[in-house]
Structures are given as structure tokens and as C-alpha cells.
């Protein structure tokens, strides 16, 4: 029972524009400790909004109106903003799709890393710097001591994504959300980043929500998969069960498109 790190029950996030848009419409899934759970679907299916809802990062006109998100025994949706802030970036952290917009262009990598450490850990700046360098090294940035003093624009897309990953890991989270972490990268760089993530998942015993539109990546990285379509998870289960015999016609259609191209 207690091996689940996250339970999402009947999550509903709607957007109140001129019509009501049901971006996330009754999503339920749970993640066991050390498991990599994949969310796959096409653009607009609600993958990212599910992830943002878990961290309660939905801004108006969007609103999470129903459901439960139970993380370590507590419902995140009922928590006040202060306690949530303690969790975000420390116990649950997220890596976004586009590393060039995820990093602040006017501060050095080092400054931003230290800021992340100091926000959540009671250490002095020297220790924070040490920790930051340690994590930049852990994500295999060749010249991590130089990169520490660089600005984001001086780095390549792949290196920037490594920095975002280091920043997400520096407070030793229990749950990591990866939102299309390789979509903005070239295939060869993508392969490197996926190898890096493999290594980190094993080393740090992380639980992961892995969001991607690419079934190939999901098949490579995940244990369990949820297929999203129009705000719902229409099918979920063990990865190879779904790939070998999909039950929903949408999943079949999606897999056939992938197959025709490979």
C-alpha cells in the first residue's frame, strides 16, 4: 500500500474562456516508488497540463476543480501555498521541454543553481556552490567549472538541458517530472540525454513522470504507460501490453502511424 509515491484520482482541470475547455478531464493514475510512468499523446491531449496540475501550477483562466493528488500521504490540492512551495523544486521537481526558455537569460548558470539550493536547503553559499558543481558534474557537462560562470545563451541546447536536469536534481527530489525533455534536441543529442536519464534514474532511485509525444522514447524509458486523448487517459498499463495489444482504437491508430514510419 505504502509503496505508492503519487496517487492522482479523478483530476479535472478546466479552462474558463468563452467556452469551458476540459483540458484534463478525470485523470487517474498512480506511481510506485522507483517507477517510470509515461504519459503519451498528441499535442493538446492534456499531458503537460496534467503535470502542471500535479504541481498546482495552473494559472487562471485555468482551474483544477476536482480530484485528489496524494503525495506521501497528503493531498496537494488541499495544501496551502507555503507548504506547496516547500515541495516544488525540492521533493517534486520538473524539467521542461525547451531549455532555452526554462533558464533565466540574465543570470549565470551558477547563480541560478545556487538560488535553487538556497531556496530549499539550510546551507551557506559555499556549500551551495559545491553542491551545484557536484550536480553539474553528475550530468556529464565536460567543463562544469566553466559552465558554472556561463550565461544560458553561451551554451548549446543539449548542455542547457543537462543544466536544467542538474537543477531539478540538486535538491534530491523523490519525484521528477520530465515534460518532453528531448523534443527540442537533435536525435544524436537526444540519445545522449536519454542515456544520462537512464543512469540518473538508476543511481538516485527516482520516481518519474515522463511526458512525450514520441512512442519510441516512451518505449525506451518507461515501465508503465498512460495514453492520453482529449484530456483523459484512455488506456494505461504495462508498456509492452499496450504496444503489443492496444485495446483502444486511438492507441492502435497512434501505434500504426509510428510503425509505418519506422
Amino acid at each position, binding site marked *: 500500500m505504502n509503496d505508492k509515491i503519487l496517487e492522482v484520482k479523478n483530476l479535472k482541470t478546466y479552462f474558463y474562456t468563452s467556452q469551458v475547455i476540459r483540458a484534463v478531464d478525470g485523470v487517474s493514475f498512480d506511481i510506485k516508488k522507483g517507477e517510470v510512468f509515461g504519459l503519451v499523446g498528441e499535442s493538446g491531449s492534456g499531458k503537460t497540463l496534467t503535470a502542471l496540475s500535479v504541481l498546482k501550477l495552473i494559472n487562471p483562466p485555468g482551474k483544477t476543480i476536482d480530484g485528489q493528488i496524494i503525495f506521501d500521504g497528503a493531498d496537494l490540492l488541499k495544501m496551502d501555498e507555503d507548504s506547496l512551495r516547500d515541495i516544488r523544486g525540492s521533493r517534486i521537481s520538473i524539467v521542461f521541454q525547451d531549455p532555452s526558455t526554462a533558464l533565466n537569460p540574465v543570470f549565470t548558470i551558477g547563480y541560478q543553481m545556487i538560488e535553487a539550493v538556497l531556496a530549499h536547503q539550510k546551507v551557506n553559499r559555499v556549500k551551495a556552490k559545491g553542491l551545484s558543481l557536484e550536480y553539474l558534474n553528475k550530468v556529464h557537462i565536460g567543463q562544469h567549472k566553466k559552465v558554472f560562470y556561463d550565461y544560458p545563451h553561451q551554451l548549446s541546447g543539449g548542455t542547457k538541458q543537462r543544466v536544467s536536469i542538474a537543477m531539478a536534481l540538486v535538491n534530491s527530489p523523490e519525484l521528477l517530472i520530465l515534460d518532453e525533455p528531448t523534443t527540442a534536441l*537533435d*536525435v*544524436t543529442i537526444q540519445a545522449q540525454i536519454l542515456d544520462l536519464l537512464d543512469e540518473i534514474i538508476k543511481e538516485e532511485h527516482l520516481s518519474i513522470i515522463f511526458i512525450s*509525444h514520441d512512442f519510441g522514447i516512451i*518505449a525506451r524509458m518507461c515501465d508503465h504507460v498512460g495514453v492520453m486523448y482529449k484530456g483523459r487517459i484512455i488506456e494505461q498499463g504495462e508498456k509492452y501490453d499496450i504496444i503489443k495489444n492496444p485495446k483502444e482504437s486511438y492507441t492502435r491508430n*497512434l501505434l500504426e*502511424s509510428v510503425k509505418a514510419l*519506422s
Partner: protein
Amino acid sequence: MSIVECKNIKKHFPILRGYRREKVGIVKAVDDVSLEIKKGETFGLVGESGCGKTTIGKIILGIIKPDSGRIILSAQRPQVIFQDPYNSLDPKMRVREILAEGLVLQDRRQGTSLGFARDRRDKIQEILDLVKLPKSSVTKYPHEFSGGERQRIAIGRAVLTEPEFIVCDEPVSSLDVTIQLEILKLLKNIQKRFSITYLFISHDLRVVKFMSDRVAVMKEGKIIEEGPTSRIYSNPERSYTKLLLSSILNIYPKAYL
């Protein structure tokens, strides 16, 4: 018979720095590339971002002038389909105007009499049928369409002037996989029906394989390997091509087959 012939084309862009715009270096976007595209085939150009694929496409179309080299383009009315249908369609024009523009310009240049609005209308309706968009689309604006539909409009616009050669520059990269497949099949149908030659530019090796008869692999401004699609994919010679191919993710890893 070749429809495009490029010999030793070079294009270097200067890197300018500071308020005096001093030249501090050059980017060898295209560095001594020769290629030949035969009539009726799909020639795939594959490589990572920044390798010079798009620059080659633009040079062939005459949008960019090369520094040196020779291009012989023997196709009539060459056309182009761009990657991002959000930027390639004028947001202030209705679909009817977007589609008609090419015809109007063509008529003006040739002085032909297809300039009648009614003839144009019939032709536009035919094309909408071909790209499977409803007839009512003509009065709509681009923002009323999804990405896939917009790409269909862009394809319709390209095909409408009866080109012999189309440069497809990453035409499906911004689309979902299921839509990708639909658009690629549409492009294949159109090619068969009008015997059009394609230069198909993409970073996605799976898409290039699906479309192309011959493939050239680019790296840092140079074509490093070229050959029939089946040979390149089954028996790559260069280590960079092998690396690219090994980066393709298969949904059925070998261990499970």
C-alpha cells in the same frame, strides 16, 4: 534526366560582432556541395539542425545566392512547402486569396487569359478536394485551422501552379505522428498524380526513409554520404550516418522481438 544539378556550391555567412559589425568569423553553411536530382524522384536531404539543409533548398530556389558554384534548375514553376504552417500563411489573407495569389501572379507574368475569377474558383475547388479540405474553407482565415489543415493549405498553394519541382522543407516536423502520416501520404499521392520531383528536407530519418528514393546525409555544410535509400539505411558507410541511424528509437526494442 536531371531536374536539378548543383556543382560545388558554397555559401559562407559572416559572423558579425559589436556595433561596428566587425567580421569575427564565418559559418560554412554550405561547403562545396554537389548534387543531382533526377526527374520524378524524391531526393531526401537529412542532417541535424544547423547542418545547412535549408540553405541548400533556398539556394536551389534562388532565394539565397551562393558565393560560388553552379546550379542548373530545369524545372518549370518550382515551389516550396515550409516547415511551419503558422508562419508560412499570411494571417490577414483568406484561404481563397492565399490559394489564388500564385495563379494571379502566374497569369500576370505569362499574360494568359486564365485570369477570370470563375476559372480560378474552379481550380481552387479542385485543389481543396485534392488536399481534402471542405469547400467552405475558402472564406476562412489561417488561424481557424489546425496545424495539419494549415499544412494542407500550404500544400494546396504549392501544387496549384502545377510545379514540376517542390522543395519540401521539413513539411511535417511541427505535426503529430498521426497527422504526419496523413500529410506524407498526401504528398506521395500528389507526386504520383502530377509527376512532381521532390527535394525532401528533414532531420527525421524515419520520415526521410518513408518518402525518399535517394538520400544524402549532411554534416557541417557537407554531404558526407549519398545513395539509394535502402542502401543508406541498411548499409551505411560513414560513422556519422551509423550514429544517426543508431539514434532512431524503435518502439519494439530487439530484446522483445
